[in-house]
């Protein structure tokens, strides 16, 4: 799996760097100097990593960085990963359509009830508490501008 992900990333960088170099060729020297200085070695390094990913050892070159938890049931990992991504993307659409003011309690309520399977009472209390902190801190105290969702504009 790490090698497949690494191959994917290397190919993506090759595509981005290749596109960058091709696009930069039309610009004046002032604008293209840095893109070419960075883009060409980036493309070559990505090609080297792609070859390494196809023919090399999967465990080689591990990073000094956060690592995903091991020992999970491999059957549930892809499903839960997609589920997490789904919640994040869904929250984004809720923010755009309903605004932060509605999307925040909606996400908290739905997640705790559906994902955490907590009781209705606990879910309601927790949601109100989070919403109160959100509203008190960001809206009342810091006056951060949170526009209403697009849906309200369409309905008005």
């Amino acid at each position, binding site marked *: 799996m790490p090698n497949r992900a690494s191959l994917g990333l290397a190919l993506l960088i090759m595509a981005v760097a290749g596109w960058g170099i091709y696009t930069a060729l039309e610009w004046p020297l002032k*604008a293209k100097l840095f893109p070419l200085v960075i883009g060409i070695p*980036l493309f070559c390094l990505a090609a080297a990593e792609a070859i390494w990913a196809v023919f090399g050892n999967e465990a080689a070159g591990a990073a*000094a960085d956060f690592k995903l938890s091991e020992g999970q049931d491999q059957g549930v990992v892809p499903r839960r990963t997609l589920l997490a991504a789904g919640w994040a993307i869904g929250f984004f659409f809720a923010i755009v359509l309903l605004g932060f003011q509605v999307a925040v309690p909606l996400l908290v309520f739905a997640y705790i009830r559906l994902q955490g399977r907590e009781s209705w009472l606990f879910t309601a209390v927790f949601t109100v508490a989070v919403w109160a902190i959100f509203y008190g801190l960001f809206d009342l105290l*810091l006056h951060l501008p949170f526009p209403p969702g697009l849906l309200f504009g369409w309905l008005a």
Partner: protein
Amino acid sequence: MLEAFVDGLLLVLHWKAFAFMLAGIGVGFWVGLLPGLGGATTLALMLPFIYNMQPVEAFAFLLGMHSVVATTGDITSILFGVPGEATTAAIILDGHAMAKKGEAGRALGAALASSLIGALIGAAALALAIPIVRPLVLTFGSPELFMLAVVGLAFIASLSGQGARGMVRGFLAGGLGLFLAMVGQDPQAGVARFTLDTLYLWQGLDLVPVLVGLFALPEIIDLVVRGTSIAGNVPAGNISKGALEGVKDAFRHFWLTVRCSLIGTFIGITPGLGGAVAQWMAYGHATQSARNTEERKGFGEGDVRGVIGPGAACNSKEGGALIPTIAFGVPGSTSMAILLGGFFLLGLVPGPDMLTKHLPVTFSMVWTIVLANLITVALCFVLLNRLTALTAVPGHLLVPVILVLVFIGSYTGNNNYADIVVTLVFGAVGYFMVLAGWPRAPLVLGLVLGKIAENYLYISVARYDWAWLTRPVVMVLILIAVAVVVYPAIQAWRQRSRA
């Protein structure tokens, strides 16, 4: 001089200035804890409140607030893996790994102790360096500043992976960061580069949405996959004892703490590099302190030195950044540029006057940094048990709250929904980088340094042609960059031949 030093302390201890400092600490404490809402933004928001204050009160308020933001930002980074500040992302790598192993108390103890030592060293540097710093800063032109950026990138790219392939991945991530930094209007010719024909990208990619996505979303996905609390089923142990152990760690690796503090101070002094660079350079240096490749493997998995290094550098840079701001009116970072605005609002002109006529005010700033950090660290230790208990909260309660903070943090920088899209995109990039075993730190450093490096490179070439490469300081920095890349290979070779 000594009289002004004591006067500075007395000025801060006056009840009104002290009360303003406490108010500043209160604001900074929470701003640091909240992801995305940065110290610079808050400084800008608070600037209008200083109109009616005396200079000492105003700086006690602003600096009191600003100097604790990095300290409490470390707490969010360690406990939740979400960067509390753009300047506290590096501490996640080992600090959050320790929290997941049930060592949150130790990680926090180490971070707080190293932060305090760093802040004290930064303040001492400010006090000592004021009369002698001018020649040092003036010897650095664009070529030297460009090479300093290259050294920083070489540091982190070569040290964040194992072996030749790890190094290639490090440089790939760094190169990608530099490439992403080119997005937006080019400063020399005005060409809109890689903007995908959108107005949003003309300004370039904002650091906060990228950082939040890159670091927070993979952690959230992992938390959902595990279905447990952050610390999993690992018991938190005796937190106070753990914190004490962390404090001891900071003294056990005292010289590393001091060296990283000096790195932070130096980066702070250097105009244009900023705190986001200091933490990664310090992390790179901490990684280099590993005696062999086996020991280096522990970094990223919860090595306390990976907490101490960035913790110290993050707080020491404030004292350093104040030096060029006060002495020459050249701000060392965005926050200092905003603070410079404060000088003018109060009718003070940075420069010789601050070192003669207003010397007690200058020293009051040194004392504010010292006192604000002492108070904050003491407060954090008092609240440690409550803070660490958060790592035992079930994941399904934490995930929605962290998601809310991540999205608000990402949105509030520019009040633009597109920033959340950037967060989601970089969340996916970060997840695949983690999955593939690629380091994320070089990408961030590349993104931070990209614009600065391009600017300095262009000025160097335009001003000196290729002769800039022969300047003595540039040649020394080139040698350091080469040594940084070659050193791990030599270390591995020596280890193999010994075996």
